[in-house]
Every structure is written in C-alpha cells, then in structure tokens.
C-alpha cells in the first residue's frame, strides 16, 4: 500500500489500502488467538493515547493492540480546557511529542482535532474519534467483520440507521463501505441526518421498512440520549418504534444479513434487547476485531516508517508481522 504517515479519515485510504489493512488484520487475528498473543513488531516504540473525551473501549482496544505489538502505550487523559485558559492543544501536543513518542492516538470532542495535531508533531497521528467527524479504526474493524461474514462487499447493501448526524461512525462507515463497493443508505428522520449529502457516496431514506428486506448489513448507531430540550425526536419509545430495529423488523431481514452496532448499545432504543443477542448480531465480534485492526494500523503507520527504522531491523520487523 502507499506510504501512510497518519490515519485521520477513511477518505485517506483507497480500496487497495483498505484491502491491505484488512489482510494484515487477518494475520493479527491469528496472533491474538495464540497462547501468548504478542509479537515484537513495534518493540521500542511508544504510542501516546491522548484522550480528551472519555472512552473505555477505544482506549483499551488501542492499549491492547500496542501491547500485542510490544509497543509501550502511555495514557494521557486531558481535561477539557476552554480556549483561553490553560494549555492550548498545540502546547499539550508539543509537550507530549517532546517525550519522544512515535504515535499519537487522539480522541477529541472537536471535529478536525487530528488535522491540527499532525501539524504540531513528528509522530504518526491516528484519529481515535474526533467529534462527529471520523472514527476510521472503528470503520476498519466493521469492514473486517462484515467481509469475514459476507465475503467481498461489492454490491452488498448496507443500511446505517439512527443518529447519523452526530455519528463519526456513520461518516467513516459510509465512506468505508462505499470504497469497498457496497451500496450505503442512511436511514433516519431528517432531524438526525446531515444538512447536506452533497458529495456523499450514499442515499438516504426516512423509512427503515422500505429497505429492511433488501439489506445485507443493518448497522445501528448509538442514539444520544441526553439534551432533551432540543431533542431530535419526541420520545425514545417513538424513535424505537419508527426507526429502531424491532424484533418484527429483524425477522424481516434476509438470511445471512448482519446486525452491527459500534457500542455501547441502548437496548430497546435503536435495537430491541432481544435482537442484539441473535446469532446474526456480530456486535461483540466487532469489538474483538477492533484490537486486531488497530494492531494493523499501528504497524503500518509506525512500524513501516523508514525514518524510525534502525539499520538492519526492517527485516526483523517484516518477519515479526507473521
């Protein structure tokens, strides 16, 4: 694949890149199944997990991935600081970078934060989720999971359902699935769709019933439950009934269609509690694959950077991949 310094958006990757990363992920799934799931691919490398926003699963997933590659993962929890008080984002990043780290995984509540950060560091920047914008490693894990069950994704139909507007997972997956040749449709009331879909490789509908029988993937998004005063739907009960994957709708999915969710789930809001436990729901598998996909991303970004490779060690690293 092409040399990749940072991973900020699914738009940074072309289909070949994604295929390469997913193939590498398959090898790391096998590593993860070993008795001692650790290889020395990133020995001596340090990854900073810089989290401006709470996250349990993404953070643990990256930390586990780094550890399985023998890299050191250091956590930096940064409390939200207002624009004119405390340290600027630039100062924080420059301070962390001065410690000699090789990768920064950034989770930030502000869209575009990793685009700013990459200007202020020599480390490789991985977007671990920025506001409502992008979450590329989640998307790669989802593509891997879907491909594993469905085979090549060309021509497959994927519905991304629910709070599309506020979802970085929806944005990354819309691009990711489309690049893999799938047809993507957003399903949501207008209040939960982006203002414009100009330039997006997707269509949109307000009616889940219209598409439920034709899709190969029903991808449900976490509904934001807070902020009732300007809530986008009158009640969550109504949302569940109109836009959620109820048991009745799940029954209408075609055989082999996958039910996916990035977690954490609101049972009985976007997805009926019982439906989440059906055999075609691959939600926990998405989580497991998240570790392997993040190993692949860390290796490709940091392990293959020639400026970080010591003489003679490239071959070691290549052999360490397998």
């Amino acid at each position, binding site marked *: 694949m092409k040399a990749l310094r940072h991973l900020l958006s699914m738009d940074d990757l072309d289909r070949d890149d994604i295929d390469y990363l997913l193939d590498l992920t398959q090898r790391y799934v096998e590593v993860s199944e070993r008795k001692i799931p650790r290889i020395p691919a990133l020995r001596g490398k340090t990854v900073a997990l810089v989290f401006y926003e709470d996250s349990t699963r993404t953070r643990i997933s990256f930390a586990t991935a780094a550890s399985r590659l023998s890299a050191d993962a250091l956590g930096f929890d940064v409390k939200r600081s*207002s*624009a*004119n008080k405390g340290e*600027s*984002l*630039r*100062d924080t990043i420059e301070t962390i970078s001065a410690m000699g780290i090789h990768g920064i995984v950034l989770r*930030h*509540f*502000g*869209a*575009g*934060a990793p*685009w*700013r950060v990459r200007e202020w560091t020599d480390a490789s920047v991985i977007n671990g989720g*920025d*506001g*409502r*914008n*992008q979450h590329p490693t989640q998307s790669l894990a989802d593509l891997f999971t879907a491909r594993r069950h469905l085979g090549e994704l060309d021509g497959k139909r994927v519905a991304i359902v629910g709070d599309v507007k506020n979802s*970085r997972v929806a*944005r990354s997956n819309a691009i990711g699935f489309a690049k893999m040749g799938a047809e993507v449709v957003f399903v949501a009331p207008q209040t939960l769709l*982006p*203002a*414009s*879909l*100009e*330039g*997006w490789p997707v269509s949109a509908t307000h009616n889940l019933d219209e598409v439920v029988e034709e899709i190969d993937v029903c991808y449900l998004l976490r509904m934001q439950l807070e902020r009732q005063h300007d809530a986008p739907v009158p009640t969550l009960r109504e949302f569940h009934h109109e836009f959620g994957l109820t048991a009745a709708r799940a029954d209408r999915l075609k055989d082999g269609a996958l039910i996916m969710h990035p977690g954490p789930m609101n049972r009985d809001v976007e997805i009926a509690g019982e439906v989440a436990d059906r055999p075609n729901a691959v939600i926990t598998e998405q989580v497991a694959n998240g570790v392997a996909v993040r190993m692949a991303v860390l290796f490709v970004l940091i392990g293959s950077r020639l400026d970080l490779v010591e003489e003679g060690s490239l071959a070691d690293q290549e052999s360490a991949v397998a």
Partner: protein
Amino acid sequence: MSTLALRGGTVVDAQGSRRADVVVGDEGTILAVGSGLTADHELDAGDCIVAPGLVDLHVHLRQPGNEEAETIDTGARAAALGGFTAVVAMPNTDPAMDSVSVISEVRALGESAICDVVPSAAISVGRRGEALAPMAELVRAGVRIFTDDGAGVQDDKLMRTALDYASSLGHLCPGETIVLAQHCEVESLSKGGYMHEGSWSSWLGIPGQPSEAEELMVMRDIALCRLTGARVHFQHMSTAGSISMIRAAKAAGLPVTAEAATHHFSLTDACCQSYDPVYKVHPPLRTDADVEAVRAGLADGTIDAIATDHAPHTSKSKQQTFADAPPGMLGLETAFAVANTYLDMPVDSLLGAMSWRPAAIAGLNGAHGGPIEEGSMANLAVIDPDAAWTVSAAELASRSSNTPYEGMALRGRVRHTIYQGEAVVIDGVAQR
C-alpha cells in the same frame, strides 16, 4: 505651521476624480488642492489615488480587557497602515462599552492613537440582551452607534423598545442620526454551530449554523424598522437571502443601511476544510452563491459599506480545534487590497463603500470621507491600486496574527496615510 504636499496623484472623492496635488497643514486641514503645489515637506503620490481616509464601521480593538490580542494603540496603527483614518470600535470589551465611564476610557486611550477611534456603545447592559443601556446618557456623551455586536438582540420586545427609545433621542444631537446596528443571528438556530451549515459542514463533520439564523433576524429587524421608523444598520451581511431582503427594504423606502465584511466577498466555507480556525468567524464564511450575492449587493449599492470586522485573537486561542477557538479574523491592513482584488467595481465606487458612505452612516462626515478641498479636514489615504504584495502575518502591525490571507497575493497597497494633517504612514511604514 508646517505644510506637506502630496504630489503627482489622482484625487478621488465623492465629487469625482482629477489629477491634483494636495497641500495639508499640520494643524489638520487641507490648505490647497491644485497643480504644481509645493510645501515644506513633500510625499510622492505618483501612480496613486489620493482619497479621503477610509472609514471602518466595524472593528474590535479588544481594549479594555483583552490587551494580549490587541490594544487601541496597535489596532489604530493597523488601521492607519490600511489607509483608515477612522474606525468604529465595537463594544464587546471587558467590561462592555455600555456606560459613559467605559466610553470615556476608550476615548482617552484613543487620544494618542494614529487614527480616529470612534466608540460605539452597547444596546443592552453588559450586551446581555436583558435591559437597555443608558442610551440617552451615552448619546449626550457623543455616541451615535449602538450595537450588541457579537450577540444580536434576541428578544423582539427589547429590540422594539431600543428602536423606539433611540428615535426619541434626536433632540440630544440635532442634525445628527442615532443608528442601531445589529449582528443578525438567532442564537437558538446558530447555537453549537461553528461554520456555515451546508455541504462542507456536513462533509467535514463540523456542526453548522444555517443561513436562516442570520436571515430571520434581518427579517425581524426590517419589520421593526417599519414599525418604529428608527434607523437600522445591518452588520456584516453574509447571505444571499439577507441581501435580497435589504434590497427590498430599501426599495420600500425604509431607513436601513448595510455593511459587508471583506472576508464575506473573498472567502468561502470551502476554506474550512483545513480545520484551521483562522477561518472561523461569525457570521461564518458562506457559499460561492452567497459570495456572489455580496459582490452584487456592493455593486448595486444595496450594501452601503465595506467593513473589516477586524477581530484579533492570540495565537494561543486559535491553536485549538475549530469548535474551541474563538471566531474572528484580522482585516484592517488587508481590507483595501482584498476589496480591490476581489471586487469588480470602479475605484470611486469602491472608495465610496470604504470612505464617504460609512463616514455618513457613522455621522463622521465633515471630519472623514471628504470632500478633498481647501478647508476640509486633512484625513487622507494615498493608495497605489496596482501595487502587488503578498500578505505575511509576521509583518502586520496588529498584536495578533490571525489573518486568513496569509501568503496570498493581493493588488493595491496603501502608501501614505494622513491623519489630522500628520503623515502617520509614509511609504507603508507607521511613523509612530
């Protein structure tokens, strides 16, 4: 008395244009306009336009309260370098300019500045939109422009009251006009939005604010203008819809005026794709169609004036994410060049929008905006309209460096600025 001749230029003012030398005296007036004039000192105005000094209806000088970003002294220097001899200072200082004491402080600080610093005052106490500021006291103290700029007056009734009250104060300033200037933004629609809502905001994942957040308040204030008969000035009009409403209001004979900010006819929301908050501004950068509408509004006079909305912010405050950084961009030192580069308007129309029309809106005619004739105040800008230059934030006089034009090639540069008969800028260099 010492005299100064501006030799070899083309004088352009509201009366027209003619080749003439201009001699000013250091007591502050124009002594002579004609050919072959000499004086104690001379400045070359060859290839240049000699115009009435530019007037900016909309600047943020940050003093008192945010002197790390700008001071009245540094902001006035930036203004003079941009050819401005008068700037209207917005009241969103800390404390807000909502009382005679703060207005007096700003005036006092402006005494030694190298352009005329004209304070506006807040419409409401603390710009909070709850209770009227002491408008009569402020008018008695010389204030003619009221605005809560940065925050539009959200409450319909309070705005109606402010307009009715303002129209009752004419006897305090006979022959002059009190104008209420509005930053049009319905906050319940714009809240949480950091750029223009549209295809770019959707693609970039940056929450947007729709054009309608501006347009609904334009619509309301046109209605309130009709109701009260009071003078309303619309600040930094940025959408095609706003401009067509202003055009209709003017055609209906309502006493409204409007300004456009330089960035709204030169930049679009596509700039935000870098996620660099140097492009974050309120109202936000809009679409190509809106930019075209602003240009058309300037060309047909719907928009009376070009303003800068000069809004300095420290580097630190802009070294954040798009959401966290404060809105605003520099404008004073690039304004003429941006207008000259991006607008297809004859130079006398351009100068009208940057000098004599804003001077009239601010009630500054007589002191600023010409005409250039014997006995007039010697507030002048000498501008080379063909000079090419490249913007470098490091070379700007502002304390801040948040220019969106960094590295861009522009055409037209201020050579000299004469303020009260004194050459405060000579060959592009501030003299104090």
